[in-house]
Structure formats: C-alpha cells, structure tokens
C-alpha cells in the first residue's frame, strides 16, 4: 500500500509542478489582449487584417484580436455590448453615429491626442468624432461619393474630359445614351440623393437639429433635377438598384456615382477600362456626400487597457496608406501628399473632393431620421408621387420622430 500511495503523491506533486510551470511560462509571454470590432467584410477587411498583423508583430506587449461583423448586424452587436457588457476595446463608428453613443455616455472621451498631430489631419474631417465640443473618436479615413466613368465609352462618344457641371453632364450623358446603353444610372439612392440635396443647399435637419428642412424648395429642386435625368433628358433608366451597378461593370453604362469601396470589384472586372473623377457640381453649392470611419473606445476601459487601445488607434491612423490600398481615402495630410498615395490613380481622384465634403448631420437622432429622405426620393423617382409632396411627408415624419425624443 505504502509504495503505491507514495507513487500517487509523487505523481500528484509532479502534475502540480508541471501545471505551475506551464502557467508561469504562459504569464511571461502573455500579452495584453485587445479586441477590435469593425464591419469590414469586403476586401477592406483583408487590408485591415494586414495592418493589425504588423501592429501585433511590432508590439509584443499587446495582442489585438480583430473581429469583423458585417455592417448589417454590426451595430446590434456593438450596442448590446456597450449596453450590457462585452464591448470591444476599440471599435469603428460611422461619423454620424458618434453623437448618439457619446450622448448616452458610452464612449471614452479623448481629451489629449497624444502622439497624433491634429494639424496633420485634413481640416474638413477634424469635425468628425466631436460631440458638444469634446472629442470621442478619431477619423480613420474619409469615403466621399465619387464618379466612375467608362473610358472606352467616353472615347467612342468623343468626350475629352469628365463633366464638372450639370450642363456638361447632361450633354455627355446624351452622347453616351443609345439603345442598350445609358449615360448614367442611379446606383445608391442614399448617397446620390444626399449629395444632390447638399449641392442644392438642402439638408435633412435644421442647424440646431430640432426640425426637418426637407420641405424646403431647395430640396424639391434637388429631387426634380435627379428626376429629370430619367424623365426629361432620358439619359438614365428608372431606379433599379443593384442592376444599375451590374450595368456599369458590364460596360453598358457611361457614368455612375459610388464610394471608394467599389474599386476592388471594378479592378477585377475583365475588359472594363474605367477611371474616376470628382462628382460634378449640379447645384449652386460645390459639395459631395462623405462618410468617415471613426475609431472609438468604450467609456468602461481601465487605464491600462485604454493606453494600449490608444496606442493601437494612433498606429492605425499612422498606417492609413496601407488602409487606402484596400479601403478608403486617408485623412492624414502627410499621407495624402506622399508620392505613394499619388500612385493610387482612382483613390487620388476621390481625395480631390476632401476640402469640400459634406457629412450627414452630427445629431443624436441622425440614425433615426436618415431613412426618411431615401424613401421620399425613391418614391419620387418611381413616380409614386410628386417630389414636393413626398418630401413634405418625409419632413413631417421626421418632425414626428424629433418630437418623440
């Protein structure tokens, strides 16, 4: 009996020792693990993954674990995490949603931009991440609406340079339109519709965010102009969603307006010779819709984790040239002016718009009021009702939502 119990004891002890040993080994190379959430489920995700990998290589004390959640369900998961626990240490918010999350105290304020020079940011994007004068997020990039055009179709029609205003646009589009081919097609009601509203001096909300201004004559004029492309000038098919984009890829549409995220799929399209240019100015205001991915941290971070998270955020901002190659336009002037960035022939054209971009209202209610204009514009373009009546209804409904707050 005795030898057996000794043996067991020895076995037990050595087992404990081994356990302790392995634990000790683990703790020496145990890095602080940070979670980073975003919705980059396209080719931009691959670019981001590369940056995260190089960060982890260069920072042995920190290990960033990135989780990509498609945008469709991203905000549900993020908001639940922020409300009930389980939020990531660093996450992306679209610029128009920062106000909502900051207003409810979910974001960690960034009172010192230690390691980042505000003067190196494009001035037009510095407003991103601010709420009531305090900073809650760092803009990683900017994605303005841009124009893609088919170079071969332009050449066949004898068009020398991409249009810059309404008259040139209609003129060129007429030359590009023939049976089975359209000069222009609407690919995204929200982005194109917003751009037209802004260019005609209209907006969803009044500057104090207390009432809707969609019932303004400027808004009607904007939608009327958009409608004239299919009705008066017959240079565009009626709205057809994704089919319009397919048409451009197949070389059956001369010009479309879309974001930078389409570059990758266009580059993979065989036989498509395309180029990009700033969106023409259709109305009295030279501007264009834009969005920005904003880097944020939750309010609940401990001091130690927050320091590591900030280190990661500055790294991402410093390395946004790599981000530009797979994702969106960088907002750091030193990168925008670099010869490497100048080599990105499409991205470079989008970047030209940076000085005059227009963001969606930085209102707490931004997400609640955003869909109303889209429905009104969609209904107008589909001839369900007159633009003026549709916009008046949308405006009244937005006021309803604002009154409920």
């Amino acid at each position, binding site marked *: 009996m005795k030898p057996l119990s000794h043996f067991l004891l020895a076995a037990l002890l050595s087992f404990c020792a081994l356990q302790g040993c392995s634990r000790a080994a683990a703790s020496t190379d145990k890095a602080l693990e940070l979670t980073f959430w975003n919705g980059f489920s396209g080719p931009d995700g691959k670019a981001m993954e590369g940056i995260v990998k190089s960060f982890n290589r260069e920072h042995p004390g920190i290990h960033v674990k990135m989780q990509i959640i498609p945008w469709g369900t991203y905000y549900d998961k993020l*908001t639940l995490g922020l409300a009930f626990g389980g939020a990531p240490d660093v996450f992306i918010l679209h610029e128009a949603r920062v106000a909502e999350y900051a207003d409810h105290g979910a974001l960690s304020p960034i009172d010192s931009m230690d390691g980042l020079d505000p003067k190196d940011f494009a001035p037009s994007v510095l407003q991103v991440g601010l709420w009531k004068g305090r900073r809650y997020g760092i803009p990683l990039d900017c994605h303005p609406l841009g124009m893609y055009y088919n170079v071969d179709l332009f050449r066949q029609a004898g068009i020398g340079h991409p249009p810059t205003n309404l008259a040139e646009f209609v003129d060129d589009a007429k030359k590009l339109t023939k049976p089975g081919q359209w000069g222009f097609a609407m690919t995204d009601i929200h982005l194109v519709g917003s751009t037209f509203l802004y260019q005609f001096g209209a907006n969803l909300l009044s500057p104090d965010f207390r009432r809707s201004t969609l019932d303004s004559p400027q808004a009607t004029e904007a939608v009327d102009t958009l409608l004239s492309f299919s009705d008066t000038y017959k240079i565009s098919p009626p709205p057809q969603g994704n089919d319009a984009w397919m048409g451009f890829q197949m070389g059956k549409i001369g010009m479309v307006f879309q974001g930078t995220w389409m570059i990758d799929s266009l580059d993979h399209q065989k036989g498509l010779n395309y180029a990009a240019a700033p969106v023409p100015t259709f109305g009295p205001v030279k501007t264009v819709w834009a969005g920005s991915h904003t880097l944020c941290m939750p309010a609940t971070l401990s001091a130690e984790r927050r320091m590591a998270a900030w280190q990661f955020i500055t790294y991402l901002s410093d390395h946004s040239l790599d981000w530009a190659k797979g994702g969106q336009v960088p907002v750091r002037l030193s990168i925008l002016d670099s010869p490497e960035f100048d080599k990105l022939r499409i991205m470079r054209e989008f970047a030209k718009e940076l000085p005059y971009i227009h963001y969606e209202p930085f209102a707490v209610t931004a*997400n609640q009021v955003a869909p109303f204009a889209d429905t009104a514009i969609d209904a107008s373009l589909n001839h369900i009702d007159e633009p003026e009546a549709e916009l008046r209804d949308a405006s009244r409904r937005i006021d309803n939502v604002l009154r409920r707050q």
Partner: protein
Amino acid sequence: MRGRKETIGAWLFLAPFLTLFVLFVLSPVFYGFWISLHNWHILSKNAIFVGLRNYSSAINDDLFRISLVRTGYFMLMVVPAGNILSLLLAIGLNQKYRATTLYKICFYTPVLLSVTVVALVWRWMYSHDYGLINHYFHTDVRWLEDPKSAMPALALMSIWWGAGGNMLIYLAGLKSVPKEIHEAAELDGARPWQRFWYTTWPWIRPITLFCFVISLIGASQVFGQSYILTQGNPAYSTLTVILYMYQQGFGQYQLGYASAVAYLLFLCVFTLTLIQFKLLAPRATK
C-alpha cells in the same frame, strides 16, 4: 389530506413548465409593459418615465397607422385564401388514389424551409428582368418595386409557404369524419357538394376555427418576408407592424416606443381573436 398531497404533486409536475413560462414569457410581458411607459434608449442609464406618452405618439404616428393597415391588408389576403387552399389540398389528398404520400411531402416541404430561404428563392422569381414569373406569364410587372404589387407578392409567397401546414391539420380532421355519416348521406342521395356541406363541414368546424386563429395570429406577426425582401419599401407599402416595431427597437434602439407598438398590436390581435371565437366557437359546440 389526500387532496393537499395531490395538489402538491400537481404543482411539482407543473413546476418545470411554470418556471420557464414565468421566466421567459410572463415576466418579459410585464417588463415590456414597464419599458413601454418610459423614454428608453437601449444605452440610457436612467430611462425617463413618460406614462402613456409612447402610446399616444404611436396612435398619432401615421407610419404606425400605415403599418397597421398594411398588416391588415396582408392578413385579409393570406388568412382566407391560405385556409381555403389548405382545405382544398386536404380534400384532394383525402381521395383514394396512388402516391398521395408523395403529394403530401411535396405540399408540406415549403413549411420546413426558413423564411430566409423562401424569400431568397422568391426574390429571384419576382425579379423584373430575370424572374421566372415575368418570363413564363409574359408580364412586365416590377413585383417588389411597385407599391401596388409588393404586398400581394409577399402574400402570395406566404400562402405558398404556409399552406402545407394547415393542410395536414385539415387532413387529420377529414380523416376523423365517421364513414357511416358519409355512407348514410350517400344512400340518401346527397350530391358531393351537399355531402361536404352537411356532413364533413360540421365535423371539421372546430378545426377550421383552430386553423383560422392560428394563421390569423401568424399573419398579424408577419415580419421576415418584408424584412428580407423589401424592408418595408417601396413607399412604406410593405411596412408591417412587427417590422416597424423591429425598426424602432433594434434599428433605432427606441425600446420604449417599440414596446408600446408591440402592446398596441397585441390589443388588436387579442380583440380579433375574441371576435373569431364568438363567431365560430358557440355553434361548433352545439
């Protein structure tokens, strides 16, 4: 003494169900009502008590009223047509011929599919340029883009999707009709239609009530179809109450308002169900 023991035993047997029921059904129901009395953003730390204001705003919100009307329209299309189709299928399958099981399987298979699968398949069928429906019927309808046809399109899809479920219940009901009654009616010279109306129909009346109530409640909660295919568009023509509640609660995180919408829908469905019971049930028990 024995009575009390039996009572304790009964409670013990009920306990597992009751625990789950109270935890996951009853308390959320009351908690939901509590939420509906607040201005409750999902992130807010202190929700503001607003009494019945969410209810009055919902009643004054034309989109909520539109969603009620659109849901009612959907129910009107789906419940009677769906039940009639199920009953016809069941009557057809209750005849004596070969391969009825094969037909049963065919009609029932759609029920097994999730709404996502059904919606994605039908999206292709409804596609304006590439869809089977426009192709075979030589029509030029923008099914899901035209506000006039969008809701009927969703209803048609839902009828196809759900008909097999009620069909099985009706079939079970038809099989339970005693053969003697049929034979007696046949001997008395009743025509097929009379045989159905005077012998079969009284027998399956309670089943009809059951199927109607269940499909009415199901149709009032229609969500997945419009969520996947149209998101309430075009021009709010497919905005159903549950979709509106979802958009308010999980799109915009207005939990108080969404709960009020849910309670108002509950009131409507509850009233409708009561009316149906009053209309159909008493005569069935005679």
